[in-house]
């Protein structure tokens, strides 16, 4: 049991950038502990991804040809199980993505591996691998180990590790995956709803509302405030799920990333990982929340512990 195996992820020809973060995490452990880093790519045409995966610290690229163009849980499970069985790595890393949600737990129970998800810290203490994740809605951190497990499988949180850089000249090998019978079939993709002229990814100034607004009838006053301030109105998921604002205004993992935003005001938003995925990088985050422990305050530059209705009511007097 040695070495680290990273499973690359891609969709519609695009490599998931968290793959490069997994590689960097692997490379860092390799520096500390020795061993090798191998990256496996499962695809109809694995060659298409090789150039992008030959980055810092990678010793080997493993091409695994699979008969599906896109992720399919049965095909991926059988291929990765066989690969782990043949290579016996001590550690397997993959992005904490929707695809991983769709098969990592199956790998773990089938293989009997040590396992946890959404890891954002990773180190060895002596011979013991220690993984850190969050608990109780991000309010505590939890350190885990995996006693007696020869292979440990972890999914890594996006943006928690820096991306691998530089180039490497890895050896390239081929792994023949066993045939699998897929029990679900891809029928097609549905594109996200277009934004009616509003594209929050382009907005420089965003005012976003979350479940803290309580009722649909309160949307209008925040809409008015945003307009007064010259800010674009955005929201967290519950607001869009309730149909109070259209989906294209939703910020986050399953919504949009506000890539050009310079100031982001979060009103009544707790700061779940999935929401933060869309705004974490913004240089100036201002959070108003009545819960002083809300995790949004951990990434905000300025915070107000208070009632959003009171603050918003006062704030409107300063913008005409």
């Amino acid at each position, binding site marked *: 049991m040695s070495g680290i195996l990273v499973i690359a992820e891609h969709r519609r020809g695009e490599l998931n950038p968290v793959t490069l973060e997994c590689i960097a995490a692997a490379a860092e452990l390799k520096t500390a502990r020795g061993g090798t880093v191998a990256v496996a790519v499962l695809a109809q045409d694995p060659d298409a991804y090789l150039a992008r995966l030959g980055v810092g610290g990678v010793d080997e690229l493993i091409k695994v040809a699979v008969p599906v163009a896109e992720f399919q849980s049965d095909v991926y499970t059988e291929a990765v199980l066989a690969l782990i069985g043949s290579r016996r790595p001590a550690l397997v890393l993959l992005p904490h993505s929707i695809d991983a949600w769709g098969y990592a737990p199956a790998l773990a129970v089938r293989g009997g591996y040590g396992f946890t998800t959404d890891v954002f810290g990773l180190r060895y203490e002596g011979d013991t691998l220690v993984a850190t994740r969050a608990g109780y809605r991000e309010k505590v*951190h*939890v350190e885990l*180990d995996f006693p007696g*497990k020869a292979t440990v499988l972890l999914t890594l949180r996006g943006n928690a590790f820096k991306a691998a850089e530089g180039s490497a000249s890895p050896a390239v090998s081929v792994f023949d995956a066993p045939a699998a019978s897929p029990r*679900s079939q891809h029928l097609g993709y549905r594109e996200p709803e277009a934004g009616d002229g509003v594209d929050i990814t382009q907005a420089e100034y965003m005012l976003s509302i979350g479940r803290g607004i309580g009722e649909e009838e309160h949307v209008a006053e925040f809409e008015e405030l945003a307009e007064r301030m010259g800010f674009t109105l955005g929201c967290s998921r519950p607001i869009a799920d309730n149909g109070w604002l259209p989906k294209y205004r939703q910020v986050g993992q399953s919504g949009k990333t506000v890539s050009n935003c310079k100031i982001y005001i979060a009103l009544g938003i707790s700061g779940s990982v999935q929401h933060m995925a869309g705004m974490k990088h913004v240089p100036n985050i201002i959070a108003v929340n009545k819960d002083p422990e809300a995790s949004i305050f951990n990434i905000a530059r300025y915070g*107000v512990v208070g009632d959003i209705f009171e603050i918003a009511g006062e704030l409107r007097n300063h913008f005409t």
Partner: protein
Amino acid sequence: MKILVPVKQVAVLDEDFELREDGRDVDPDYLNHELNEWDDYSWEVALQLQERHGAAVEVVPVTVGPTQAEEGLRKCLAKGGERGIRVWDAALAGSDPTVIARLLARLAEREGADLVLTGAQAADHAYAQTGVGVAALLGWPHVAVVSALDYTPGAASAKVCRELEGGLQEELAVQMPAVLTIQLGINEPRYASLRGIKQASAKPIEVLSHRELGLSDAQVGEAGSACRVRRMYVPAKGQAELIEGTPAEQARRLAEIINELRGVNG
């Protein structure tokens, strides 16, 4: 057909809390519990299938947890269903999602379930593991993070949407029986009626131990888990500069900050 819906009472921390003496978890005195938000949606999916297809469909909420977890089952039963199942015994303390999946898979076999609907994740620890683990243990197909479902009970396959990143959705057909993990927003969960709440308190809840599900001590608790908690700690807080004062003062300062950052003269 029988639809099994695993639900969980998730823990919510008090504003001020303390860790347990061994430092491996929060002192239970500081925990409140509520039904996992995702499970509200998965239970609603089950109820709607039952309504559309009548008495041929039985819906059963199940949970793994101590006595207080029954509250979650009663919440579900207040909206529909005739009975619930709770799995618990002392050996189950410290079980990770792998163990929970093992118990639920055994329960699905024992019940002869035809469909299992879990939440995509639980709000407290957000593992997002349980449903897909259950599927793998049963040897069933599964789809994770389901945002739409088109299924006629008894049919050999279902059409579902899987919610991906960035608002993209994937449409797929999945063979039955299957495990689906349900995403927020798939429906609008109903409210329980007062009458429903009253009736729920009289509905039977069967309590089972891991042994009754044919699992050994080594397969549950910490021994049966895929990971072990070493320690828990409160992380160092981020840098938010807190703005103090009355709401009027706070708003004035916020307006100044916003104008400065925008390069507008306040």
